[in-house]
């Protein structure tokens, strides 16, 4: 009988995602195109080996791992938005939890895919599983990362599925299930980003990473980029589905982000001071990032663009007038997103390995194959989020329950009040 109700729920979900307007299907088609591109890129990589990328022994981690690192931050920060939602007692707390956790789920799917496409022998991946193989626990931070990321994925999927399933059946969600899990997911969010930072931090061979400031910087930058994505999503959902979030809540998020941006810039400044004032051999990586080294300048422009983006975004968010203006607010979101994406994607991984441990400079830029594969992974992630939102929103606002017809795209009465 219970199985029957789950089947009804799943059929309802399938009906929700299979109906939609022209723009919805155009968006799905675009995502499908991205995924097909990714499959083509990965097929090439699987045939020739990772030589289809521009990674080499000198720079043995690059674009994929940079994207992975950035997305761990997104996954962490999405859930941490639950904290201000509680503190300031926002009305759509349930919606914020569900949308944040769904973003975390999509980001985690992309994280795991980026790790998978980066491994040279994915057919051996099962060697990391306990009982049947030999995970190097507790010594290997990658094993820790696999545990915390998968655990985080399970927690978030459980919460989202539970809330939606209950609401679909016209019942209130079980607080004894949801509250402890949401409370657990908050320190766990800090945990996934800390463990990911330690993955780099623990390598004494790479002075650029082997700095205690690394994990705090990871968290600070995640608190900037993750909420930026959610702010934009909230506005889109408010327009398209009547998602009830007030301007005040949005401006509160922006205010919290401005503190995070300040901490992020401060930590960057602290690191820059230490590197350049002491000017030891270890400052060579930071010099490569900001000024180039021995005539190699491939990432210098990116480094300065990232700093400029982060600084401008901070100014836009710290001034109340610009953070309340929807245009400057969204510009700030775009800037901080770009800033952190460059900082984590390029500024963290590449200088960590350039010059390499024996002083060699190999200038890395991604190949077309790497862009294709990354596009595919992002396509999968966006698809997951799109489908989840498509299912969640009508269930959350009560327009879709067991035994009902699939609702219209926008419920006319649910238009935002302002």
């Amino acid at each position, binding site marked *: 009988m219970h199985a029957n109700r789950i089947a009804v729920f799943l059929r309802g979900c399938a009906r929700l995602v299979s109906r939609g307007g022209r723009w919805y299907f155009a968006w799905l088609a675009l995502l499908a195109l991205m995924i097909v591109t990714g499959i083509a890129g990965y097929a090439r990589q699987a045939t020739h080996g990772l030589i289809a990328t521009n990674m080499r022994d000198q720079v043995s981690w690059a674009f994929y791992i940079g994207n992975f690192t950035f997305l761990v931050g997104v996954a962490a920060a999405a859930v941490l938005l639950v904290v201000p939602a509680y503190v300031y007692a926002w009305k759509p707390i349930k919606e914020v939890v569900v949308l944040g956790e769904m973003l975390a789920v999509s980001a985690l799917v992309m994280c795991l895919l980026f790790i998978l496409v980066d491994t040279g022998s994915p057919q*051996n991946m099962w*060697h990391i599983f306990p009982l049947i193989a030999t995970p190097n626990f507790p010594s290997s931070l990658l094993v820790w990362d696999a545990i915390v990321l998968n655990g985080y994925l399970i927690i978030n999927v459980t919460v989202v599925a539970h809330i939606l399933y209950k609401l679909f059946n016209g019942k209130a969600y079980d607080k004894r299930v949801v509250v402890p899990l949401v409370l657990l997911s908050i320190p766990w969010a800090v945990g996934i980003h800390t463990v990911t930072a330690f993955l780099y931090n623990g390598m004494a061979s790479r002075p650029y990473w082997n700095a205690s400031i690394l994990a705090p910087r990871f968290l600070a930058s995640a608190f900037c980029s993750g909420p930026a994505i959610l702010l934009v999503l909230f506005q889109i959902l408010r327009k398209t589905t009547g998602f009830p979030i007030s301007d005040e809540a949005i401006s509160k998020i922006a205010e919290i982000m401005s503190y995070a941006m300040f901490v992020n810039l401060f930590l960057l400044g602290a690191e820059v001071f230490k590197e350049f004032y002491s000017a030891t051999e270890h400052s*060579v990586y930071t010099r490569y990032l900001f000024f180039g080294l021995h005539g190699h300048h491939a990432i210098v422009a990116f480094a300065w663009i990232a700093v400029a983006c982060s600084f401008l975004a901070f100014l836009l968010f710290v001034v109340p007038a610009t953070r309340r203006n929807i245009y400057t607010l969204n510009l700030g979101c775009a800037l901080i997103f770009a800033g952190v994406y460059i900082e984590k994607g390029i500024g963290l991984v590449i200088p960590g390995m350039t010059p390499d441990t*024996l002083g060699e400079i*190999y200038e890395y830029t991604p190949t077309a194959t790497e862009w294709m594969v990354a596009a595919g992974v992002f396509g999968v992630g966006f698809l997951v989020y799109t489908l989840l939102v498509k299912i969640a929103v009508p269930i959350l606002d009560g327009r879709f329950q067991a035994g009902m017809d699939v609702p219209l795209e926008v419920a006319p009465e649910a238009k935002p009040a302002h």
Partner: protein
Amino acid sequence: MSDDSRSLPVVQDEGIPGEPPEAAVSRRAFLQTVAGAGAAAALAACDVESSLRRHFKELSKEEVERLIQKVQRDHEARFGKKDWKVTARAPMPGVEFGYGLDLSRCIGCRRCVYACVRENNQSRDPQVQWIKVLEMDKVRGVDVIESDAYYEADAVPRPGKFYMPVQCHQCRHPPCTKVCPVKATWTEPDGITVVDYDWCIGCRCCMAACPYGARRFNWATPGIRAEEVNPHLAVLGNRVRPKGVVEKCTFCIQRTREGRYPACVEICPVGARKFGNLLDPKSEIRYVMENKRVFIFKEELATRPRFYYFYAT
């Protein structure tokens, strides 16, 4: 590009093979070669038997024996009939290998680099080398940031320069094995850090962790011609690697566990390389440690290498 467009010339005598001329192939030609090796690659990818076996250290004697036969079959299938001799010899009791490198003698000729490539079946295309020789300024001392691994010279040693070959240091506290998520690399009782190529997932954590740049990744299926393959193979050593896994110097495990010198020691024309049993007080390496002054590369990282540099003169 450092790996396939820049060449690594070595000052050559007669009969010292450097790179084969076809090493300088264009990218297109190279990719075609790789595509040509596609059958082998596809075979390797579908190597269910290798993918499903247990960790090397969990294998019984009979299973190791079967693995040895499989390695031989695989090599025969790819490279044809040869005088194959595949081994998986256990470490000798009472032996811990140690290595000494005399920086005052090394002339930077790179014979060790190529002897190693031949002995250990490294890929010729793309080029993989386990030893890197750094040219350094005498006035700067050991300064890796200012060093040059791609020096091109008509004659070595060049004035004002000295040479520092770097390879796996076989650390007592290896950062590489610590970070491996699947225990695919470990240190044997005789001090050699090995890789189980069938167990490695190719995540390259170990490469990020190694402070000596000693680990190499098979970015493509190793390209070696049949006549170049050394048929004396060790399962945890110089057997031809699949693509997508990490490899490294094993002190020529296939030789040293049989009581022979590593290929780099044997070829060195100036006797800069010393090798022996650290547990044997009469060994050459112990003589060096007691009578010369040794130094440890990146000693501040506390990796405690079994590889020592020294100045004999």
